[in-house]
């Protein structure tokens, strides 16, 4: 019997490799290439057009001296943490409510989910309106007789980011609720029975048993929300344009404004590099824990 030589590795599974070309292209050229390009040019003093005139860390020094950038960072932190916490908590609570074998579940679910279909521009616009002190909620409540009522988040620099959060939550919680609901539906019915037989109250079952079991679901939700937070831009532009003053500025807007309005590409690139760096700092340990840890138990 003859031995046959092993064929060339490169050509095995050729179709699979060809089909993955768009992905490889996107990953390498667009994401890696674009990122490297951005980082590279952040060390130049490019203005309107990218130029390779290197100036070291000047752009970064200036960036961290800029109060608008500092405010942006602070805002995205506040927004990010609150948005993560509230979206997950509210999304989960709503999912729990909907999971109680209620009637008209479809209707409720649709109501909670529809804002997700609307763009941030629309969301921002409507909420800007509802929160407008002159004819929104504040004026309505005042006209009902409570004249000292204050609810004016979009025009108060101290709380404007919360005003944006209200709209952001309105838009995003429905989707997270859906993910959570799907997760809850995936929990083994027997777990519930076991906890009832053990006499564990429902709320404790949720906290101590169900939530830990839904870890992957929470991680999926977390990734989706976090990806959205980093990109927060449209909502702010539509609701406040970063105002009042610069109280609701966010990093993505800083990047955009400095790249195009100030025509200082390098400054914008430096800011984006900082954003990417932050993302990496958050993501890499997570990815390590998640994937590195998982390999252990197959």
């Amino acid at each position, binding site marked *: 019997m003859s031995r046959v030589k092993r064929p060339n590795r490169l050509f095995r599974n050729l179709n699979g490799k060809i089909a993955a070309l768009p992905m490889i292209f996107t990953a390498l050229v667009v994401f890696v290439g674009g990122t490297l390009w951005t980082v590279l040019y952040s060390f130049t003093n490019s203005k309107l057009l990218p130029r390779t005139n290197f100036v070291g860390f000047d752009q970064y020094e200036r960036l961290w001296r800029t109060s608008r950038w500092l405010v942006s960072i602070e805002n995205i932190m506040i927004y990010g943490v609150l948005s993560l916490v509230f979206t997950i908590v509210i999304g989960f609570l709503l999912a729990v409510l909907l999971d109680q074998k209620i009637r008209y579940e479809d209707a409720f679910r649709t109501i909670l989910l529809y804002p997700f279909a609307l763009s941030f521009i629309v969301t921002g616009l409507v909420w800007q309106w509802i929160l407008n002190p002159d004819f929104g909620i504040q004026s309505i409540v005042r006209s009902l007789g409570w004249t000292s009522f204050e609810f004016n988040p979009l025009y108060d620099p101290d709380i404007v980011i919360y005003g944006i959060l209200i709209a952001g939550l309105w838009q995003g919680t429905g989707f997270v609720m859906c993910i959570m609901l799907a997760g809850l539906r995936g929990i*083994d019915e*027997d*777990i519930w*029975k*076991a*906890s*009832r*037989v*053990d*006499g*564990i*109250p429902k709320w*404790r079952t949720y906290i*101590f*048993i169900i939530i*830990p*079991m839904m870890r992957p679901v929470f991680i999926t939700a977390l990734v989706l929300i976090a990806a959205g937070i980093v990109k927060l831009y449209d909502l702010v532009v539509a609701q406040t344009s970063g105002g009042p003053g610069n109280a609701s500025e966010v990093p993505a807007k800083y990047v955009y404004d400095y790249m195009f309005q100030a025509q200082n590409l390098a400054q914008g690139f430096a800011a984006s590099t900082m954003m990417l760096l932050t993302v990496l700092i958050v993501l890499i340990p997570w990815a390590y824990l998640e994937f590195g840890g998982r390999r252990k*138990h197959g």
Partner: protein
Amino acid sequence: MQHSVSIKDLSLSFGAVSVLKNLNLDIVDGEFLVLLGSSGCGKSTLLNCIAGLLEPTDGQIFIKDRNVTWEEPKDRGIGMVFQSYALYPQMTVEKNLSFGLQVARMPRAEIDKRVARAAEILQIGPLLKRKPAELSGGQRQRVAIGRALVRDVDVFLFDEPLSNLDAKLRSELRVEIKRLHHNLKNTMIYVTHDQIEALTLADRIAIMKSGVIQQLADPNTIYNRPNNLFVAGFIGSPSMNFLRGELVEQDGKILFVTHGVPFSLDGYEAGEPLVAGRKVVLGVRPEHIKVDDMSAGREAHDAVVDIEEPMGADNLLWLKHAGHTLSVRIGGTRRYNPGSQVKLGFDMSVASLFDQSTEERI
């Protein structure tokens, strides 16, 4: 005798689908009762009703002579073990065992004592600090049993606790559960669709079909004197051989005739007088047909071997006889080639006769 669990006229419907129909069942204190039936017959539903996890549509449930129909599961004095184990995955074994007690605000010392006792009984002491994911299937099932054990309950409910395990583990844990019952002497209600489990574990077996109990009796009776065709066919592997025929009177004796072949019914203990002309089914278990062994003056029937299935300890023959295919179990060392002619002897003292229309035992 004290009844540990008593079910009166229990009915349950899911919407229009009636799953349990006016079911009555009394379980004696300390008894090991197995609910056996094919998938979807309502075994789990019944067990869930007893546990209080499902509300019956009608009827009552008594545990230790207390009407618990409306009580919460935790107040019924029951513990339950599930097929999927239903362990809390993120808690250690110890936590799994103690969580319910902690919630009930039992003192720490008492909890520790109970966990230690359960761990000892089930020999899971070394596993206490592990999480369920780090346990094998059998160990998980033991922990699941432990969770019921620590709660010191009157009645244990098992819902197919072994069906997720492989054959070897299954037979090991079966013995363990049996031993546990010997030691604890609690009432146990055990759902399964595995007849070996039912036969080996049960004090009594209740065979269910579509929400109705077909026969409730000890394993020996169930196996050897099945109430009706369903029970007869359900129990035993390979199945009982069924021959459809007629009762015929010949020389003053009632014979069973199928495809023109007469069978003497000598030795059969009928529950009612046998009447000629009645259409009946004769049921004989594979191990009750002797091959080429005509001792004790049995009738000899000719048959041809169709297929042989050697199973190690036993050998299964599929034979053609009088228009039927019969399965016969013989010793593992005796071998027949397909096509061989053999002589069969039927042991009527352990055979069963059923009416063709009512399907009830005669």
